[in-house]
């Protein structure tokens, strides 16, 4: 249970790990925008994005396998969307049975898009600890304080949620074991049976979550926690040359993709003009 890969931090001392969490989040968002900007069927743009992820992975010293593992968790989703495209896309000419060339291209397009996004997202969580991540988001949301948005509380909720993921995993593990010892069977039967078999796990889990929430609230109260006003930070986020390099690289990626898009668009314009 403990080796859930998606979203688990891989400690290291690399260039990427030392970057400012705010910058990393921005870069990750920019990267995802770049992936979405790649317009239909221009796979060269995807190649550029892939190159970016590979480069970032090498620099971060995270083993490639760890990054790839994150794709495993969503493989079902990817295959499902690809199949939808394959069988239900009626555009283009039929190449095989009900499968059209446009459907085929679309399926490839969707696979590439989802995979690249998940790779990027998991690289972010692999190189940024949950606490840094929450701090980074809080930092980025700071401007919202002007419209009275409770940024600090929001970030606190998030970091508590993140903090409790491993605890919840352990707890789930324990309860599953206790029920298995009483003969519960989670592995056989059809989907309804399996869903029903989860009740003896979910209810104790829910109850213990409430109990934990109570305990945490008491612990925070007894340490005089009073929200954002007077709190200082142990680790200050700082924007450095590393972040500048990262921002420049991702900016380059976006510019490149936009340029490619424009280039193709011009080409097809020229074609249309030629045809006229």
């Amino acid at each position, binding site marked *: 249970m403990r*080796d859930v890969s998606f979203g688990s931090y891989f400690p290291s001392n690399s260039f990427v790990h030392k970057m400012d969490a705010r910058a990393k989040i921005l870069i990750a968002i920019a990267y995802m925008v770049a992936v979405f900007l790649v317009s239909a069927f221009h796979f060269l743009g995807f190649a550029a994005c892939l190159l970016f992820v590979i480069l970032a992975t090498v620099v971060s010293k995270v083993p490639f396998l760890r990054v790839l593992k994150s794709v495993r968790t969503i493989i079902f989703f990817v295959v499902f969307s690809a199949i939808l495209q394959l069988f239900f896309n009626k555009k283009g000419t039929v190449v095989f049975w009900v499968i059209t060339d446009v459907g085929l291209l679309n399926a490839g397009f969707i696979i590439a898009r989802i995979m690249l996004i998940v790779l990027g997202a998991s690289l972010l969580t692999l190189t940024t600890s949950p606490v840094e991540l929450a701090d980074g988001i809080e930092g980025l949301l700071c401007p919202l304080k002007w419209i009275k948005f409770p940024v600090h509380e929001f970030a606190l909720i998030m970091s508590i949620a993140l903090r409790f993921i491993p605890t919840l995993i352990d707890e789930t593990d*324990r*309860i599953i*074991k*206790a*029920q298995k010892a*009483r*003969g*519960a069977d989670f592995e056989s039967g059809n989907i309804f049976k399996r869903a029903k078999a989860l009740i003896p796990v979910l209810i*104790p889990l829910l109850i213990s979550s409430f109990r934990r929430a109570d305990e945490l609230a008491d612990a925070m109260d007894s340490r005089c926690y009073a929200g954002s006003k007077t709190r200082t930070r142990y680790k200050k986020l700082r924007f450095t040359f590393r972040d500048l390099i990262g921002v420049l690289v991702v900016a380059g990626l976006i510019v490149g993709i936009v340029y490619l898009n424009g280039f193709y668009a011009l080409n097809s314009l020229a074609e249309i003009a030629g045809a006229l």
Partner: protein
Amino acid sequence: MKVVAKNLNFTYSPKTKGLSFRALDNVNVEIKEGEIFGIIGKTGSGKSTFVQHINGLIKVQKGGGALKVGDYDLTDKKCDYKSLRAKVGMMFQYPEHQLFAETVFEDVAFALKNFAKDISAEEIAARVKEALSTVGLDYNEVKDKSPFDLSGGQKRRVAIAGVIVAKPEILVLDEPAAGLDPKGKREFLELLLRLHKDYVKTIIIVSHDMNLVAEYCTRAAVFSGGKIIATGTPKEIFSDKNIIEKSGLDLPLTAALTEKLKSKGIITDSDFTVEDFTEKLIVALKNGGKIR
């Protein structure tokens, strides 16, 4: 049913470098039928990892050695874990956290319904009633209550009933008395002894309470860093300074007192149970003379 482990090894996350951890290291032990067997050792020494092997909650790893429970060979791929678990009951720390059903009756019956699919409603009711009265609860009073409306001590009893209702031959308890007040603890131990007398044959108990081990266990195994560094009667284990030192364990009160009184020449020895210790002390006191 006998539990026999030969060169049992276990590594957590064996494939992930950096995260992998050797929790069991060549564990050899034989637990005979009828014993109350103690598993002791510092935290993180591998006790829970070992006992969870016994009913297949943790599977024996490839090349991890051999483990047999009665006729069940746990290294066999085709091992029938469900019927094994019916015979080996397991209870964890805070067993009341496993309660889930709407009524106490449903919760206690859970294991029965899982293990014996074709059991009749009357049989279920009879077994639940028996289990509840064994743990000292009144069937008619609690059966229709929500388990979450009970007191802490009652919850724990219901949870215990939910395990013993399947009539296991071996009962494995992983720190079962944690979080109980002294009275609750005493009652719990009495319940254990009662169970051992007329319900389950073998009890395997993981505990940090050395007094409990000295008083009730027939034998015990001392874990340290994933290895068993000693197996023997409580008397043998707690008399060996080397083992106590190496495992970082406390002495039970009776052992510490015996030691002290021996050095003062008042008694010669005891087997570290309260009964035997007081016996020896009374004899010494009656003999008079030896007390300075």
